[in-house]
């Protein structure tokens, strides 16, 4: 896929072009639409907000080994907001962590690729998630392990902004700075929305960077859809041997890339594209299209009548 061979080590901050990464993020969105079409259900808007972040991480920033998801020196990646797992699958397939044809079984009974990440079924998933609020703690365990093993891998954790409501995140935030984990990087997907409404109107989390800073982190905001800004933030991470964990607050749009999702991101927290929606959404040329009729379904808010 990416012109790489099995067991090639993919170095950190490899020279991927910003423009190629930008296109990669767009392709990822299209692949996500295809995957959810196949499964008949999925989390569009939560995944679209991190498309650029995931693309830069997997295609440029993280040290990985093609085809070897268990390589001990790989950088670790944890998806605290596990409901965006569908965004991982195309990237992990590209790394030859599993056969690409697994993608077509996404969401099926007994299939390895599931709606939330499961480390026991999907090679390349460093930890399972689904319950919000656990994975920053798990990341601390991995970062402590790196130090014990004198390895210099980094552990990246993407958290939802609503996920910051969970107290365990703050237990972990406290512990990460206490343990001086310069090898831990938290990325908050500040897409402004949780399930019920705008994150801060449901339960205020601002100032996000200010809160992490008070908990002992080096924290700053970036535009989470600006490839150049993401590259700059990741390229200039402190050495993993340093003693302050880094928090990057990525300001994003929930539903980014699909106009009607950007407008009503909550409706697209969970659903699938119905026929009318599909006509309006961007499509891959090769996209098989959904076999499902009907309009988008929303889990928490209300069920459409159509």
């Amino acid at each position, binding site marked *: 896929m990416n012109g790489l061979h099995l067991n090639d080590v993919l170095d950190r901050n490899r020279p991927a072009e910003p423009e190629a990464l930008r296109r990669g993020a767009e392709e990822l969105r299209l692949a996500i639409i295809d995957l959810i079409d196949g499964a008949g259900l999925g989390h569009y808007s939560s995944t679209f907000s991190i498309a650029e972040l995931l693309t830069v991480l997997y295609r440029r920033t993280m040290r990985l080994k093609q085809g070897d998801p268990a390589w001990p020196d790989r950088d670790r990646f944890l998806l605290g907001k596990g409901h965006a797992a569908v965004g991982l699958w195309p990237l992990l397939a590209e790394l030859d962590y599993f056969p690409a044809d697994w993608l077509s079984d996404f969401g099926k009974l007994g299939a390895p690729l599931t709606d939330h990440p499961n480390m026991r079924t999907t090679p390349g998933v460093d930890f399972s998630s689904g319950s919000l609020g656990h994975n920053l703690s798990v990341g601390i365990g991995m970062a402590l392990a790196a130090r014990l093993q004198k390895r210099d891998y980094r552990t990246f954790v993407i958290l939802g902004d609503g996920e910051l409501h969970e107290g365990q995140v703050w237990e972990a935030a406290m512990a990460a700075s206490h343990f001086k984990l310069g090898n831990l990087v938290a990325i908050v997907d500040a897409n402004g929305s949780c399930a019920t409404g705008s994150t801060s109107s449901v*339960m205020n989390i601002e100032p996000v960077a200010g809160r992490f800073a008070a908990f002992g982190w080096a924290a700053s905001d970036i535009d989470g859809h600006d490839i150049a800004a993401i590259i700059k933030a990741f390229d200039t991470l402190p050495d993993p041997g340093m003693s302050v964990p880094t928090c990057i607050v990525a300001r994003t749009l929930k539903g980014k890339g699909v106009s009607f999702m950007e407008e009503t991101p909550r409706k697209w927290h969970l659903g699938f594209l119905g026929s009318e929606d599909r006509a309006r959404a961007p499509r891959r040329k090769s996209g098989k299209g959904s076999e499902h009729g009907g309009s988008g379904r929303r889990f928490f808010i209300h069920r459409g009548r159509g």
Partner: protein
Amino acid sequence: MGEAVDVFSFTAGEAEVDGGESIGAALAKLGDERPDIVVVAPDLSGAPIAAIFAARHPERVFDCGIAECNAMSVAAGLAASGYIPFVLQMGAFSALKCAEQIRTDMAYTQLPVRILSAWSGLTMAYFGTSHHAVEDIAITRAIAGLTVVAPSDPHSALALLRSTLDHPGPVFFRIASGDEPRLYKGIPSVARGQFLRLHEGRDATIIATGLAIHWAFAAASMLEGEGIQIGVLDAVYLKPLDEAAILEAAWETGRILTVEEHNVAGGLGTAVADVLARNGAGAKLSVHGLPDEHLLVARPAELHAHYGLTPEGIVEKIRTLLEAR
């Protein structure tokens, strides 16, 4: 309609169900009558069960964000100040995540909090094991001073909601999706600690709870055509448990099958076994539910079929039970 709809449709609260009330509508109506009812809903204030109430009484709804434990203790503080808080929780994150808050802040203190634990069992199974709520009967039944009920349709939900309203201690409602099809024609009259009888039996008795009672009832109807008379008891109360009904079933039909959307270790089946064994009732017991192992992840209907949690699966279990010895 796409098939996704079965999985997540959750209209309770949004609409009248079958001309009757939904849980959400009922809660809102109770809220009209009783100014001491408040709602706490961690990132769920827009969910149907809470939404009608929220629209009518916004000042009495407290969303606490995605912080389930805090929501529980906040509710306890409200209850200690004269309110009857209804805390809406997702099944996977209620008893399992907040057991300590339930035990310490509600049961120890005997405060009238009501936990609406919705999307329990396999309702959200598609999302992975993290979203399975199949340990909650075991957890809640072990907490002294907690009442545990499990409505099986909107009508029994209403009956339980109303009849427990002035109970002085905490009440845990184990709710599946909340928009199960109607099972009871009218609003059944429920008494504390008593099952509801849905079908008279002679050859065996099925005791089922929640969604499972629907399959049990269908199974009994299927068997009736063959002249097999199966009693069906809806375990709407899980704690206190209807010991008299269990022993009577043991006595009258000699064979009992329990059915539940819960781990067979520690759920309704175990609770029934407990009553039988302690009372020396010699009935034959078969426990049907989810195996005590890593469950598959898929849509609920697929998993129900896979694990035999269907009318057909129950019929098969009954046949085996009838053949035993």
